[in-house]
């Protein structure tokens, strides 16, 4: 049973005609052709599907699209666009990605963390970022988050 659902996606309203129970992940990837958000497990265990809902990191593979209607959704495509967000600049500076598949989820989880804690401690990073990365980039993710936090602080000053 599909319905028309209005989403506030990366700052713009967009209507989709889908079964309201469809997880946001698949609405983004298959109906809106926004393939930056990735599928890794479908059970919210890996974080590849992380987006931000009202600035908070959420795993979109278990989130029915109906539940986010009218809420502010940010995906990797909208993270800094058209410029690069400080996180993205930090990711480049520290050469974080290898295969890159998990990185959208990492960046969005980091975005959610920085919205919450502007200068996160290592313990806060540990708690907020538990995305799986098979290429093992987590060490650089940590360093890049610290760098991005510093960049944002300097830019705000």
């Amino acid at each position, binding site marked *: 049973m599909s319905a028309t659902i209005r989403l506030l996606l990366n700052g713009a309203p967009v209507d989709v005609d889908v079964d309201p129970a469809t997880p946001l992940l698949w609405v983004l990837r*298959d109906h809106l052709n926004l393939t930056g958000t990735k599928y890794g*497990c479908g059970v919210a265990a890996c974080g590849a599907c992380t987006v931000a809902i009202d600035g908070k990191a959420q795993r979109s593979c278990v989130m029915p699209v109906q539940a986010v209607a009218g809420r502010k959704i940010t995906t990797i495509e909208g993270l800094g666009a058209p410029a*690069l967000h400080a996180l993205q600049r930090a990711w480049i500076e520290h*050469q974080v990605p*290898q295969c890159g598949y998990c*990185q*959208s989820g990492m960046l969005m989880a980091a975005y959610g963390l920085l919205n919450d804690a502007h200068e996160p401690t290592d313990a806060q990073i540990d708690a907020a970022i538990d995305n*799986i990365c098979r290429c093992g980039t987590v060490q650089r993710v940590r360093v890049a988050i610290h760098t991005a936090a510093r960049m944002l602080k300097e830019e705000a000053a």
Partner: protein
Amino acid sequence: MKRRTLLVGGAVAAVAGGGLLVGFGRLLGDRVGDAGTLPVQAGTVGLNGWVRLGQDGVVTVTMAKTEMGQGISTALPMIVADEMDLPISLVRVAPAGLDQLRYGNRIVFAGTWWFHPDNAQSWLARRFTEMGEANGALLGVQITGGSSSVSDSFEMLRLAGASARALLVAAAAARWNVPPQECTTVAGGVVHRQVHDGLRSAAARLDYGALAEEAARLPLPADVQPKTARQRSLVGTAAPRLDVPEKIDGRAVYGIDVRLPGMLFAAVRGCPVPGGRLAGFNAAPAKAMPGVRDVLSYDGGEAGCAAGVAALAADSWQAQLAVAAVQVQWDTSGLTPFSDAALVEQMRGAFEREKGVFVFHERGDGARAMDRAARTLHADYFAPWLAHATMEPMNCTAQWLPAGQDPAGVRLRIWAPTQAPSFAIETAARVSGLRREQIELHLTQIGGGFGRRLETDYIVPAVALARAVQPTPVQALWSREEDMAHDFYRPAAVCRVQAGFDEQGKLLAWRTRSVSDAITPQFLARNFPLMGKAAGMLPDRTQAEGLWDQPYEIPHRYCDHVSAPSPVPIGNWRSVGHSHMAFFTESFIDELALAASVDPLAFRRGLLAAHPRHLAVLDLAASKAGWGEALPGGRARGIALHESFGTIVAQVAEVSIEEGRPRVHRVVCAVDCGLVINPGIVAQQVEGSVIFALSAALYGNITFRDGKVEQGNFPAYEMVRMREAPRVETWIVPSEAPPSGIGEPATPPLAPAVANAVCMLTGKRLRSLPLRLA
């Protein structure tokens, strides 16, 4: 096609016959090519098979290897850019066509033999290496694996870049009417400085783009010399990766991201028992669900693909729900249900076998020397099956075109994240019945390879399903559960290690008996059937590599192996045989050190007197780790040294026990991988290998019950996350030796380094993976 078959047959005969082909090197032929090698493309010229130059000055380097995160889409073009004095900002990459033998991987075929690295320069070893490379040259297989990309490409790309530069210089010199020797190349252009009466006047400069057409028409100057080490300026620097920008903003397109107009999503569901068949299925419940276009079955067998059903729908979600609703009957009659415990028991039974044994390595008095030992120790080790669990699950997109639609005669288009384009095309041809020339393969980014994407099973359902709904494109997608259940697992292995000391306490004898199934014959049978038959006649070195090929100076050695066929489909998993054998070897070396009451570092050093390269790596890791210095209470260090794929790695792990489990705080790695193209990428690979290996060491365990994999999704197959990731430090030993690999070699030493530290802390020697204290 016939010539190719003849060549392949000849190569197979050469391999099977084991003949020594002296001077086969001559047949290797020219890999660089010339101005006619690359296909014509408006606005650009091909200067040779590897360098395409645009009128805009952009140089596109041909990539005959696939990027899967290991960084070669930056490292390989750096070699060319350095030779051409070209800023990296002007470099792009494009995949090689699949129709030319020159793009095949040669060096990976030279790794088939089981010569000890100490004997690698012997006359016999060099002939076999040449023969392997010659086979590679004849086969022209494009495959990325074995940590071979840089070593296979380095000399060739140096020459390709130097040749392109020489042509551009010649073109500029001709235009200026000056001798080429008076020209130099700087920042993507040729420069000529005029010298009058000892004074330099303004330089003339022509950008490469402006010289492209003329350069492509010139004959290659004689005696093109690539740069010397001192002349190089880009190679050896941590240049930023070319693929990073698209991987941080969602632009990178992985196989699973391919989107084509009208495309259907097909969720696959394969028989959970290897070798099982589809007896029947009731699609009615699925077909009644919204968005479902059809439910189809597909055959198993080809490329090791399991037989199965798929639901085709308008989106992936509907397809997944639908395929779960299909009522399927599997036919597993004739198949013996198996469990991992029973298979391992059988493997252990082979420890006493005397027949059907292959001796990989023997030195001195071999096994007999153990009888002379004053004191012997032995231990039994075990490592389990492991899944690859790439973050991007298996998938493939295919579209059949009606005959006559495509002017070039293409009938089938495939989009695949694959490490083995040549195998992908072969499998597609076999499944479709089409000729290779009728198939167009598009390579996408790969969300993790680790050896899983050397396989081509994922091609099979995509091609079959797309045929049924042609010309509609179909994306076949494995759920995480399907991916976990249909892997080609790192095989389990058991190993009995034995060593003997003489009366002076010196290590006299080393003996190993390893037991596991053989990867290579089944891997080739799945993906390259012609070579599968030949490979079946040869021992598979991956079964015991890591046990007999290490540098320790033990005078008497005997390493043999019993092959243990099992129904579990197995494949290449990052570092292959080394992934478990290093755990056996380096743990047992520590056991010997402790038995001899010698510090584990000193014990190893004492066995490496004639191996300065290994000593240098070991000492570097130990010194940077502060080996011997005090540690905070509750922490200990463990060390391991391992050589694989031509590269030497030593690691020191700093470990504590938390909540009854090993907690790794810091891993210091030293690496000798010969000449380094990009030290930033080397560090990435080391860091990544450590985390990859740590997940396996702490958690990795695939078990079977009634022939089915018990682990469904990540919660049952855990991975190291940020909070338990150690700090990894990478130290590179400077070297001018030819580059060896770095994609895999930092994986094997990690598990033993951690286990050795655990033993220091707890007194418990863990001889099984994953490491469990309870």
